């Protein structure tokens, strides 16, 4: 895999991970950019001992942690700065069909609102586990390696995230019941 292929393959996921960690599109764009540049710098030294995805996500997480530390440190100064039996039941992400009807659009918007509501009740670390599992199809050991957490923590964070999501989606459906 060349460095161009690496950033093409993981760029979008790095942005989505950054988005769920920061909860802000502008901050996520900056964070993803920093993480990708760091990954590109280190790519030649990456010997393929680990999975490249886990490695890139780990870099993203470290950049996020550094940004938190730097935010605390420079908080005052920033005031002046500019702004089958083997079948896996949770299948890979669906690709949306073209030209959804207005009803489908409205339903999708409601679902997105419910997702946003559920996300606000989760910690950044819980959201990160959800992104790596649901959007990139990472296995639990891969997620544990990417985020540097025990396997049991992956399991509990993912379950909590899904429970909260399920609650938000049920609440969204309730007003439409007869």
């Amino acid at each position, binding site marked *: 895999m060349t*460095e*161009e292929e690496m*950033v*093409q393959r993981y*760029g*979008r996921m790095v*942005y*989505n991970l950054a*988005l769920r960690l920061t909860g802000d*599109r502008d901050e996520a*764009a*900056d964070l*993803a*950019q*920093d993480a*990708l*540049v*760091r990954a*590109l*710098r280190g790519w030649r030294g990456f010997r393929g001992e680990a999975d490249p995805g886990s490695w890139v996500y780990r870099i993203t997480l470290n950049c996020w942690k550094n940004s938190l530390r730097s935010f605390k440190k420079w908080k005052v*100064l920033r005031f002046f*700065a500019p702004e089958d039996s*083997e*079948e*896996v*039941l*949770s*299948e*890979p*992400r*669906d690709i*949306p069909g073209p030209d959804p009807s207005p009803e489908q659009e409205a339903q*999708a918007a409601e*679902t*997105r609102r*419910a*997702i946003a509501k559920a996300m606000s009740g989760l910690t950044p670390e819980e959201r990160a586990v*959800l*992104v790596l*599992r*649901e*959007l990139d199809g990472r*296995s*639990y050991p891969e997620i544990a390696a990417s985020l540097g957490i025990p396997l049991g923590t992956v*399991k*509990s964070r*993912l*379950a*909590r995230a*899904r*429970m909260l*999501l*399920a609650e938000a*989606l*049920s609440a969204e459906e309730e007003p439409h019941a007869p």
Partner: protein
Amino acid sequence: MPHEVTPEDLSAYLDRELDAAALAGVAGHLASCPECAALLQRLKGASAAFKKHGLEPAPEGMVFRALRARRRGGERGAPRRLGFAFAMAVIVVVVLAGGVAFKRFMPQVFEQIQGMIGKAAGSLGR
């Protein structure tokens, strides 16, 4: 009916991330517990909804900008930090130079202000 499985088990069952014995245990419980079977369906629905609607497009040109920054040997945050440090240095120089000029060209006003600051400092010290 007592629940032998937790939501964590059900979530891991959904992903087939349990060992064979645990997988069989959860499957057996699901066959006799409609409550847990319903919860599994809800978790499955939540998972599907996030897969379908949770992914956002990356900002346009982000990958290209990262590659360009790499080729230039820099990163986006570096010039911004450098610019901020430069702006702070300029502010410090302007403030110091202003103080010196003020003392030289308006010595009486300077002394008055100096006296006021001294008084204020003295009252604080009491």
